């Protein structure tokens, strides 16, 4: 089993930074990996593919009833039509939050996540405590994100055990009736599309934007 044939698990682990560097230089030397291809992958997920894609999907669903129907019926068709295709978004299902139902997404077995619309998963989503408790104690998990739901709202948890990737369609915040899709996008956080939080209220957005100003 690779690197840990001989040492027991009380040995200090070797520095991953050094191991990665050695492995990359070996694979490049052997003509198996192009370092520029790695740069391209990193740039893609740092700057191009991220939760703004998902926010555009959600904002459009909030403002375009036909698109919303398609999204809930055939998420692949709807999302792919916006150009968000590819790795870890080949098979998509969108689950809608309603006045009586809140959805939460997890992958208990690894860290499956809809890359095409949300980018790479955050550290907490991949962490053992989240993966362990999202299915058994979702209310406790939501509380750790500062999210409390009205009493009559029931929770559905979606464990990503196949190649189907789940995206939560959050509730459209109140007081946004006259907002355009472009304005609404700002309310759609990554966490609201995983289901650990609600979409931002206009008031919360104002506070965040005020804090971002220098």
């Amino acid at each position, binding site marked *: 089993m690779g690197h840990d044939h001989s040492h027991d698990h009380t040995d200090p682990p070797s520095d991953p930074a050094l191991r990665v560097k050695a492995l990359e230089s070996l*694979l490049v030397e052997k003509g198996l990996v192009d370092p520029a291809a790695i*740069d391209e992958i990193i740039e893609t997920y740092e700057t191009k593919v991220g939760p703004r894609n998902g926010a555009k999907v959600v904002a459009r669903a909030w403002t375009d009833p036909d698109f919303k129907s398609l999204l809930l019926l055939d998420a692949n068709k709807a999302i792919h039509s916006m150009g968000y295709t590819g790795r870890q978004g080949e098979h998509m299902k969108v689950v809608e939050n309603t006045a009586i139902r809140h959805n939460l997404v997890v992958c208990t077995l690894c860290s499956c996540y809809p890359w095409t619309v949300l980018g790479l998963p955050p550290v907490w989503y991949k962490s053992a405590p989240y993966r362990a408790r999202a*299915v058994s104690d979702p209310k406790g998990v939501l509380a750790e994100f500062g999210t409390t739901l009205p009493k009559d709202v029931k929770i559905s*948890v979606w464990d990503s*055990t196949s190649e189907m990737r789940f995206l939560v369609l959050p509730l459209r915040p109140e007081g946004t009736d006259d907002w355009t899709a472009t304005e609404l996008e700002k309310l759609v956080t*990554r966490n609201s599309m995983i289901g650990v939080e609600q979409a931002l209220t206009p008031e919360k957005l104002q506070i965040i934007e005020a804090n971002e100003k220098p």
Partner: protein
Amino acid sequence: MNGAHDLGGMHGLGPINPEPEQEELTFHAEWEKRALGLTLTAGWLGQWNIDISRFARERQHPVAYLSNSYYENWLAGLETLLVERGVISPEELAQGKAIDPTPDELTEKCAPASAVQGILSSGGPCDLETDIPQTFQIGDKIKVIQFNPIGHTRAPRYVRGHEGIISDYYGSFILPDENAQGNKIGQHLYNVSFDGNQLWGDDNDTTIHVDLWQSYMEPA
């Protein structure tokens, strides 16, 4: 396998401590970026599939799996696969230097930077037809079989032996249990809903949805 990766329901792992979304970076160290890139580009050599690669991470010692960060688990899995598939030798891994010549059929598969966008945006769909009839319909009551395979499976322990209801049918998809052994077989895939109180006890009023292949289930 009943490994440390199968975390649903485990206690004692502490708080989640999420970083605030607005402050979180995509990567937390330079080496994480290279580990991601290496895992993807090495995967494109075509010497393994996603389930073989998941299984390589899962069968680490549980202490290692739970102590490692996410990208450390990726790195450990990648090292295992490269050696097991004979892409590199253990000596080369230990020394970080090429010793043996690389066969042309492998170097030919090395993806250049110009191919990356195409590969990422086309992805790898996992649906695959089957001749076996679909057994279950939406609304059917099922029971997850009780089994403890030593190989890779995507039936988490917390639903095995429990009853649920078929809530969606996705079509026929590659069966991970066989795919991890290099056999591509299509099988019907369903979404199944379980009552929280069935799985976790009386005070749990949530619904848990799990994707399950046909062979994981029997009629209830």
